[in-house]
């Protein structure tokens, strides 16, 4: 198989025996990008100069006897994660020229582990969207069907992994933005427990929900990246002081004795019949490798989208107040006074979906509406959290679809924001409850589009969802299939 098609651990085997160098890998991925990315448009910025420096450093480290699971591995980074000296736009005109003066904590960890950053990937502006159609840098296409969306908001990272334009990538997930694009593009995407991975240097969207997560070609690769990016960080006071296990040790290949919960509410109304069939078949596969299944109930999950689309825009309207044309980013060329400068800078700098969410959030937090919307949504968040707590008294993981449908067509939902929001119905409750969730490929529909299986775990129990996902992968080959590019 070609180098660009291999997983991180397969590449590491070749690097370890010196069959290839990190420079060879970097060249192979840039060749792949040059051949495909004008059609896929996964990347917004490529950084070959720095990448080849990192590759040579990695090769040097290896010659000096160094080794680590990510040494010399070329990755792509979602353009919402700050990279020192590399433009970080968040898919927005308002940050079109922003060059961070520091690295995010996850980038520091990855750099120390010896990875190569190939470039920054496209995304819905400020991570607000489910389709990667809302970016100032244009839309990203699904490698399985170029007329379909790659999912979002980490659509660039998902497409880059699926098209073999990188070995793996980082995304961020506020309401499904790692898992849903992973499902749409037929790859693995893990959203860690809230607090597991430092948010320092992740441009804030909704601070009580945001998490960075790996997007990879198989489950082992996700565990390898988690080993490097996770852990407590004094610079993020919401990062948890929890011990960091070696996540690869959870990958036993068996789900023996594990109890899977199947949420009744996730299979009623709105779910595509081919998605339902694929997920039910996946559950049978897991039963075949030793798991037992029970039905569980998450009665408040149908309120998740409404609660989420009050809370996330409210937090966003506050977080995005910082874009004022003063300290960084875009400033309108035409203004008569300070207020006028703010108003025009923000109107010209933000795209339609971001403005819509700032308007929603500002409205929900404004005098007279705070209790009816924001506080109500916070109370519903409590009910959703309690549903999961109750379910996890009886089961070890919850298994569900990642998204109600496979990838939809580009342009299909851009005029109807509410329909777009409803594509997050199975992912947002997990963020509201702060739980870890992983999406793994579990089939294809009749049009050849990938379908994702979501496995949801208890807080800080990424190990068990990785174990179940890995056991599933050992008995299926969906993750090995490649798009017809």
């Amino acid at each position: 198989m070609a180098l660009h098609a291999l997983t991180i651990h397969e590449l590491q085997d070749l690097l370890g025996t010196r069959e290839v160098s990190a420079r060879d890998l970097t060249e192979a991925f840039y060749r792949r990008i040059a051949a495909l990315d004008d059609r896929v448009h996964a990347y917004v910025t490529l950084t070959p100069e720095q990448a080849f420096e990192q590759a040579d450093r990695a090769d040097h480290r290896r010659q000096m006897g160094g080794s680590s699971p990510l040494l010399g591995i070329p990755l792509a980074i979602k353009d919402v994660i700050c990279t020192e000296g590399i433009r970080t736009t968040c898919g927005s005109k308002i940050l079109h020229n922003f060059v961070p003066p520091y690295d995010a904590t996850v980038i520091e960890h990855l750099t120390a582990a010896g990875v190569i950053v190939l470039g920054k990937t496209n995304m819905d502006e400020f991570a607000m969207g489910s389709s990667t159609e809302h970016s100032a840098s244009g839309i990203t296409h699904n490698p399985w069907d170029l007329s379909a969306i790659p999912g979002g908001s980490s659509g660039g990272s998902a497409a880059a992994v699926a098209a073999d334009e990188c070995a793996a990538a980082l995304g961020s997930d506020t309401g499904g933005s790692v898992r849903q694009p992973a499902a749409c593009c037929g790859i693995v995407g893990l959203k860690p427990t809230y607090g597991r991975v430092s948010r320092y240097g992740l441009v804030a969207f909704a601070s009580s929900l945001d998490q960075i997560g790996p997007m990879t070609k198989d489950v082992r690769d996700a565990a390898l990246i988690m080993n490097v990016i996770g852990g407590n960080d004094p610079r993020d006071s919401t990062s948890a002081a929890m011990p960091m296990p070696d996540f690869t040790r959870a990958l036993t290949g068996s789900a023996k004795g594990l109890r899977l919960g199947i949420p009744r509410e996730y299979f009623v109304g709105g779910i595509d019949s081919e998605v339902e069939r694929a997920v039910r078949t996946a559950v049978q596969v897991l039963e075949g490798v030793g798991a037992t299944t029970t039905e569980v109930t998450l009665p408040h999950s149908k309120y998740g989208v409404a609660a989420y689309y009050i809370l996330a825009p409210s937090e966003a309207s506050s977080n995005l107040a910082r874009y004022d044309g003063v300290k960084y980013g875009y400033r309108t060329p035409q203004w008569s006074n300070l207020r006028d400068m703010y108003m025009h800078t923000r109107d010209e700098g933000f795209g339609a979906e971001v403005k819509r969410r700032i308007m929603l959030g500002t409205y929900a937090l404004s005098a007279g509406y705070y209790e009816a919307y924001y506080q109500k949504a916070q109370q519903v968040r409590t009910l959703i959290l309690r549903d999961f707590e109750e379910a996890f008294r009886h089961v070890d993981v919850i298994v569900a679809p990642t998204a109600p449908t496979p990838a939809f067509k580009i342009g299909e939902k851009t005029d109807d924001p509410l329909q777009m929001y409803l594509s997050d119905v199975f992912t947002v409750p997990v963020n509201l409850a702060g739980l870890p969730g992983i999406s793994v490929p579990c089939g294809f529909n009749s049009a050849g589009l990938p379908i994702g299986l979501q496995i949801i775990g208890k807080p800080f129990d990424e190990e068990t969802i990785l174990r179940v996902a890995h056991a599933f992968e050992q008995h299926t080959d969906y993750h090995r299939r490649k798009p017809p590019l």
Partner: protein
Amino acid sequence: MITREDVEHVAELARLELTAAEKEQFIAQLNDILTYFEKLNELDTSDVEPTSQVIPMSNVFRDDAVQPSLDRTKVLQNAPEESHFFFKVPRIIEE
């Protein structure tokens, strides 16, 4: 129902200078979305504590130790306008 005046008021609070077309679009779309939010009223939450974040942590302290700070030149390179190591902003006090 959200009115044109509501949209203008919220846009002012959010410091967004919306065009007439944007206002029209937002009136329709925000009404759709707010109508959808009404389904939350099916739930009686009078005795439910609100959740603002899920980690059971309150104050997080660290030692008050001197740490390196960001490089001033690099930081100011991102400023739309700067002057003598300061961010330059429009005049806010009338002469």
